[in-house]
């Protein structure tokens, strides 16, 4: 479904992504984990269109998207839920969601989806007409997620959904994502610092380190992998020290 082939992306003069290649199959949840500064957000931004790779190819369902602006990628079924939520604070929750469906022409479908999401996320209902900036972090994340879903994406890109959330809320959000994948067959590409939680819900995962993909495997494989455990899961330090 999504094939990222060997892209190099620069942030100004800094070479952030070096020959990064990943792919996401239909119906999969794929997680990309790595430390701060490894390039996870850059990777997602390159796929979403907020940044442009200097070389390489990004293939989404047969279309080369690497050069398209983000507003053009939406029509193809690619939606990004950005880091830090980025809601339209002064607008109500309802209006935020409606804007999520901005590019869609089917008014009835939009109305239907709005209702569906309202049912699915009852939290949103209580804030339906209140300005989005009045919501807490976890609630805002829900709104951001719902807004991205309003565009009926086929692949959902999530940039650090658990950022700034308490562990309980983080688990909640990730569980919601997993449910969305299972129930609606929504493909998800997830970038996360919380490696354990992300790998738990993912079918497959990648480890990104200083701009390179260094590991690839299924969710459970990576969880059990020694390197991953040492570097990202905080295990096995004792053994290293004693070596």
């Amino acid at each position: 479904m999504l094939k990222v082939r060997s892209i190099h992306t620069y942030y100004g003069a800094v070479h952030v992504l070096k020959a990064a290649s990943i792919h996401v199959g239909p119906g999969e949840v794929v997680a990309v984990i790595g430390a701060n500064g490894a390039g996870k957000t850059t990777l997602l931004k390159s796929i979403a269109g907020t940044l442009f790779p200097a070389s390489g190819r990004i293939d989404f369902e047969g279309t080369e998207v690497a050069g398209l602006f983000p507003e053009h990628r939406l029509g193809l079924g690619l939606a990004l839920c950005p880091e830090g939520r980025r809601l339209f604070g002064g607008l109500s929750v309802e209006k935020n969601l409606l804007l999520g469906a901005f590019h869609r022409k089917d008014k009835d479908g939009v109305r239907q989806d709005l209702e569906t999401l309202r049912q699915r996320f009852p939290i949103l209902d209580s804030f339906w007409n209140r300005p989005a900036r009045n919501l807490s972090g976890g609630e805002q994340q829900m709104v951001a997620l719902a807004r991205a879903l309003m565009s009926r994406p086929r692949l959902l890109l999530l940039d650090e959904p658990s950022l700034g959330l308490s562990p309980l809320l983080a688990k909640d959000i990730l569980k919601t994502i997993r449910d969305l994948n299972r129930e609606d067959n929504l493909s998800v590409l997830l970038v996360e610092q919380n490696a354990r939680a992300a790998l738990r819900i993912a079918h497959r995962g990648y480890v990104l380190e200083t701009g390179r993909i260094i590991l690839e495997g299924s969710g459970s494989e990576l969880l059990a992998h020694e390197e991953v455990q040492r570097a990202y899961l905080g295990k096995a330090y004792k053994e290293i020290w004693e070596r």
Partner: protein
Amino acid sequence: MAAYILHLAILGGMYVLLAASLNIPVGLSGQVSLGHGAFFGIGAYISGLLAIHYAVLPFPLLLVLAGLGSAAVAVLLSPPALKLKDEYLAVVTLGFGLIFELGLKNLAFTGGTDGLYGLPNFGMQGADFLWWVWGAVALCLFVTSRLRKGQFGRNLTAIKESERTARTLGIAPLPLKVGCFALSALFAGIAGSLYAHYITFINPGVFGLHTSILLLCMVVLGGMGTVLGPLAGGILLFLLPELLQEFADYQDLVYGGLLIVILIFRPQGLLGRAPGQGRRRFPLRRRTQPAPASTSNA
């Protein structure tokens, strides 16, 4: 003919002086002032009124008082305004200029719309004025160049880039900005006095918005923040209408169009450096060891 050229040289020199003085806040510290004509006017009227009421005062004293008076106004009025963002500062200075102009027209002692006339020229000839004007220009350019290179200049650049960061380094922006304005008002006031006694009559029209905009065009055209920029911009924009007398109606068209074109295609002006092409003042130090490559991340 020679007298005409002399006249151009004197008047042109005054505009260069004004542009050079405006360059200090606009070019060095990024503060847009659309009311510079007012400082020009303050100096002119101070000098003119003092000359009328206290005829004993010698010219050099009037010159100094005009400059200091103008600077004093700047110091008094600018602090609250300089806390505002660029766009707002620009309009506040514009408003100040307008209020000044209205004040001149409506108050009795400034002579109203007719202004002051019959001002003494202290027996000075054209050539004398030439020395005074260009002497002042030289002084102003010298001051600008010293400011640019010294600690003051570096602090100003820091403020221009990011005020917040500059603060964390212990640089207090407000006194520096006020200082810039005071200096620019000083030289503008001096220009005002020179103008008053050369032309021997002054009225509100010359010190209004149109002049302020013209001066700004000169600074931008020449290159904001460069030392000689105001010289180039001032001479060019001053001579243009003089040489193209028949095209006097097209003046504003040219000024406006030129300003737009320069800002789009060459914002650094005639003498400025293109962004990204500065001379490296501090050459990059070569690394003696390659940066360590580690796979473990804290």
